[in-house]
């Protein structure tokens, strides 16, 4: 098509803007609202074009002229959701546009009927059978045309959607790729394709047109496949190329930061987003998750009230309110709002998982399991649900049983320390110290979020009487904590210091020992022990009248025991 030829080089913003304007109007004519929205959002982010630069409207053919009246009538019915009526008046039209709208109305009518039907089915026998009756006919007609090569980009997209609904995923992928080739600018087709791509190998094997929109797709795909670094790189490139004002990209970057738990960055971006687009509701649930994690009550409250004012019957709004109540420890109400969100859209993944968390808080384990299972049903790759299931079973004191779930979660997020720590804890409960050590060490190596892995590792070594390793871990732990500068929250520092003091004392490194003991005195719970140790040290020093010279060497990192063998040398693998 002409369009495909046009979009060859990336970087020519004027050209891109032209593409966007024309494809948006095409989508609007066909009732593809979401694609139109995406296109115009992106177009808005670019500088406006002078009058004579505006792209010409699509060529008007003889067929179009013939169908003009029927099409405008049908379009108005279509907009009012009278799909059957629209389809009736479009029957027999021969232009491509009319044909698409005709098929699309039939498809949507079938979907609508299916949804209505499910409400009053004749019992369980019927329940599973409720399906979009139009799909089969549509498929037959479309495949005939497809074989004859008469489908344009939009109809190919519709054909793909029909195939996907019929669970013919392999064919659907092919058709979507075709649709993208014939009309690269239609974002809906890319999105549908992204839902069908399950792994990076599959993504690499697809042959996609070389178009600027491909970068958007790849960035989206990387986010979906949890390859956040690559995704961020892609988005950064896009911003540098001139899309800096696009709210879409900002929100996507914020979501990506959220996924790698870079909370501050994500929060900053969301705040920026809300400045630019104050009435936006999309992605606000993610924003509220961040506020929740940071325990920013007033901000969350403000967000919730604001969103309720905009539209209270949106899934995102309900999720935000749920988070708000959860933060206020009103878990019943929180669960209620998540339920409401699910009523609005049962395929809303986040709400299922969040509801599971709420039930966990309420100690209703079976309901939590149910919620998590539903989340997994919606998306098998939802690591939070797997993790939640693991936690549930851990609470039920089934450490072996929960291993499976933690492993699943770990598989999906190999570099997330929380799963590794959870795995390690389970192994520890099962007295599988070797595995536990591996998990903790790995958790530390991938960058421990909660800073607990080292401490646990140290304690494990302590239990196993591997005092050198334990001291090494405590040392690393203390360094880690102090480098973060938030020692207040970590009362365990005193434990580490106490152990180190004893350790140095036993190894006759009295200077280091007394230093540790002195530091111990800074903490309430270790003060007495610290003092006792200091006294012991001075006693021993008195006994040994002639201290050797090297004991006066100042405490430095060189004096810390050298780690002899790491439990599992995985440092080289850290990302």
């Amino acid at each position, binding site marked *: 098509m002409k369009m495909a030829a046009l979009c060859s080089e990336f970087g020519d913003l004027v050209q891109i803007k032209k593409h966007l304007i024309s494809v948006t109007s095409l989508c609007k004519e066909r009732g*593809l*609202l*979401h*694609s139109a929205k*995406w296109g115009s959002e992106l177009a808005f982010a670019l500088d406006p074009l002078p009058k004579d630069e505006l792209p010409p409207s699509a060529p008007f053919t003889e067929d179009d002229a013939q169908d003009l009246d029927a099409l405008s009538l049908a379009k108005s019915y279509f907009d009012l959701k009278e799909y059957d009526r629209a389809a009736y008046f479009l029957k027999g039209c021969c232009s491509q546009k009319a044909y698409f709208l005709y098929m699309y109305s039939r498809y*949507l009518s079938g*979907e*609508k009927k299916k*949804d209505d039907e*499910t*409400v*009053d*089915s*004749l*019992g*369980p*026998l*019927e*329940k*599973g*059978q409720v399906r979009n009756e139009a799909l089969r006919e549509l498929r037959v007609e479309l495949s005939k045309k497809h074989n004859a090569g008469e489908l344009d980009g939009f109809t190919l997209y519709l054909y793909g*959607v029909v195939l996907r609904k019929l*669970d013919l995923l392999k064919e659907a992928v092919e058709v979507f790729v075709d649709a993208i080739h014939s009309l690269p600018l239609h*974002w*809906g*087709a890319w*999105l*549908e394709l992204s839902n069908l791509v399950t792994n990076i190998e599959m993504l690499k094997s697809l042959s996609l047109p070389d178009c600027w929109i491909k970068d958007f797709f790849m960035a989206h795909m990387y986010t979906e496949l949890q390859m956040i670094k690559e995704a961020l790189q892609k988005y950064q490139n896009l911003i540098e190329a001139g899309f800096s004002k696009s709210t879409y990209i900002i929100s996507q970057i914020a979501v990506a930061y959220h996924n790698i738990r870079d909370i501050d960055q994500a929060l900053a971006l969301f705040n920026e987003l809300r400045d630019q687009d104050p009435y936006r509701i999309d992605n606000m649930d993610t924003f509220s998750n961040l506020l929740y994690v940071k325990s920013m009550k007033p901000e969350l409250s403000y967000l919730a009230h604001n969103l309720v004012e905009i539209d209270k019957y949106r899934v995102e709004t309900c999720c935000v309110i749920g988070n708000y109540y959860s933060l206020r420890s009103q878990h019943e109400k929180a669960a*209620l709002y*998540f*339920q*409401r*969100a*699910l*009523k*609005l*859209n*049962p*395929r809303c993944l986040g709400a299922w998982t969040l*509801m599971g968390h709420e039930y966990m808080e309420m100690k209703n384990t*079976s*309901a939590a*399991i*149910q919620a998590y*299972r*539903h989340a997994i*049903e919606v998306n098998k790759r939802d690591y939070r649900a797997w993790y939640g*299931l693991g936690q549930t079973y851990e609470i*039920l*004191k*089934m*450490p*072996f*049983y929960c291993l*499976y*779930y933690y492993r699943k979660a770990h598989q999906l997020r190999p570099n997330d320390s929380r799963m590794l720590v959870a795995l390690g804890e389970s192994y520890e409960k*099962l007295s*599988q110290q070797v595995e536990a050590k591996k998990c903790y060490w790995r958790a530390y190596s991938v960058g421990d979020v909660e800073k607990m892995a080292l401490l646990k590792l140290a304690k494990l070594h302590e239990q196993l009487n591997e005092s050198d390793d334990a001291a090494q871990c405590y040392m690393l732990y203390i360094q880690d904590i102090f480098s973060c500068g938030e020692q207040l929250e970590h009362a365990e520092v005193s434990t580490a210091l106490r152990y180190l003091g004893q350790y140095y004392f036993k190894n006759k490194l009295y200077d280091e020992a007394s230093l540790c003991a002195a530091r111990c005195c800074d903490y309430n719970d270790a003060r007495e022990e610290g003092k006792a140790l200091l006294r012991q040290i001075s006693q021993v020093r008195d006994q040994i009248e002639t201290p050797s010279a090297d004991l006066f060497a100042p405490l430095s990192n060189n004096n810390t025991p050298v780690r002899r063998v790491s439990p599992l040398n995985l440092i080289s693998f850290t990302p």
Partner: protein
Amino acid sequence: MASVHESLYFNPMMTNGVVHVNVFGIKDWVTPYKISVLALLYEMTASKITLPERRRLNQLILPLQQGPDLTLGQFLQTVEECCPQTAYAVKLRLHEMADGELKDMEYFFSTLPTPFTAFDSEAYKTSVVGLFMRHMLLAYNKLSFSQVYKLYKSLQHYYHSHYAKPTDGQEGLPALVADDSDMDLTSAEDTVGDRTGKEEMDTPLHVSELRNDNALSRGPLSQKQAEYFLARQAYLLKNDENKALKPAALQEELNNMLKFNPDFAEAHYLNYLNSMRVQDIFLSAHSLLHYFDRLILSGNEGKSNGDEGYGRSLRYAALNLASLHCRFGHYHQADLALQEAIRIAQESNDHVCLQHCLSWLYTLQQMKGSDSTVLTEDSVKMAAHFCLPYLASLGIQSLVQQGATLGKTAHKLMDALKDTDILHWKHSLSELIEISLAQTTSIWRMYGKSTMALQQAQLLLNMSSLEPVNFGVQQNNTEAFTVALCHLAELHAEQGLYFAVSEILQHLKEQFPPHSQHAKLWMLCDLKIQFERHMNEGKYHLAEPLVTAISALNKTEGLFRKAQVLKALNRSTEAYSILKRLQVHCEKTKCTEMVIRGMLATAGLHWESSGFSTALPLLLQALASARQHHLQSLASETILHLAFTQLMLGVPEKALNVLHEAIEPVLAHGAVMEKGRALLLTARCQMAVAGFRPNRKGQADWCLLSPCRFSSGSFGC
């Protein structure tokens, strides 16, 4: 985002956002089939029917009411067998409704006798029929406008699809004829009514099941059909794997079922069983956990068991996970899971679950190869205390097995088995009865009493199945049957009846195709028989390749066979080292039979180097241990070896004395080959005693005359 329709999506299964998993708790929905049953009931109350016919119809009511939905053809056929006149009336009534208008159906429901008014009829409100009618009426009255129309549409479809496919009727025809003759025979006596009812009901169900297999791929099943399908497949997987659907096909059906009913937890369990069949640990673990996740939900909703049901499924979840790992040979994992199950069960004082755990614990110990007698004994005691006959006798059987290998006296073992048999028959634990018989066969074989073993095997094979589902079917394809058939094959092979052996093996191959779980048993048996045959015929080059296959199935056995082949090929040094390894290994695992065999083979090696006197202590040791374990066949074989050694040492009188002891049991129970050898040896001894000192030439003649190459090398069995 791109799919606009998603916002339209609404899930009716949800109230307050929580999906009700157990919608299937409500089983009373009006379906076209139910309308047909209602029509039948109506006709039965309305019209005059002769007494025998009415009796037969009455027998039919309960299964029809509670069974899965049948197609109209099946339904009418079933009714017709009892009373053609009523069937016609029902058909007419359905025709009226289906070919009429919606009001005909409405009229039908309004004319149904209301259970509250009809005091004198069978449809009184407290009767089974009355209850059913009340349920139906209530369900019908609850339907909304569009639902009523839909019901009518589906009734029309139901009725017309029966006539659209005349093939259905024809398919059913032969069955009908066969049943009719059955009916004539039995209907004369109404005292056996129970049985008749059962058979009557069985046939249509089988037909419907066959049809199900075709229909499955077409659309979803009803709840009852799905339940029936699952129950039947699960039963078949356990008892007769061959008849169950092929793993791939079953998987497809299950996927189909789960696609339409994602809440149907039992399907996940069957999925687990099916994946176990193809040794897919990932899928089976996944399905198992999924099943229990689901079960926990439904367990929580059950009002009767309440909180208890929820905790219960947790315990059994852990236990099942243990068994999964155990089956895949992950003993360490299994151990951990089992400990977890035990801990939770202890915390909640669930003795029954603990008991199950205990029996798994000793099984696990056994599989790991450590001694578990004490544990097993405890388990049996506790099981008896908690009245769990299945576990108790399973434990006893396991004890018997251990006892047999440890050399407990025969009468004790047999007594124990007899006692458990009483228990089995009392509780009709058919599975254990089979195992018990197979076990007796094995024990007799181990003791070398081939006749007894043969008798027990035949007893098992001729026994009719006691399972309700396969009632009256003779062959039941459980592990016990495989074991018995393998013994049978080996016993025939011993007597040189190779044609019979090949027939038995052919049967085994058909019944237990190579992918099924018990196939390894007959594979090993087949290989062993072939090996023996080639060895006896002196075709060592043919026997050699079999060794690899044997070791793949059973390492110890493979090692022994390898030593045998090497010995036959005169590669004594290698053979000796292998036998040494075998000896050490078997002593560790307490495999007495193999130890003795190894000793005999080692003695044979000593002969080759003319070290007859060094072989002597070894043989005596073997004899002592064979006698201690009551292994008669091995004992007599050892005696033959001993006699030969003595003969070679020049004390034929002593040899003859010893031989007299062994010749009787050999002739009574031994294999043909052994009999021949024993007689030959006796003859040689007698000659030697009689003073006939064969010169070199004479000895050479002997060798030529002997049925097999009677050198010291081939003497070992």
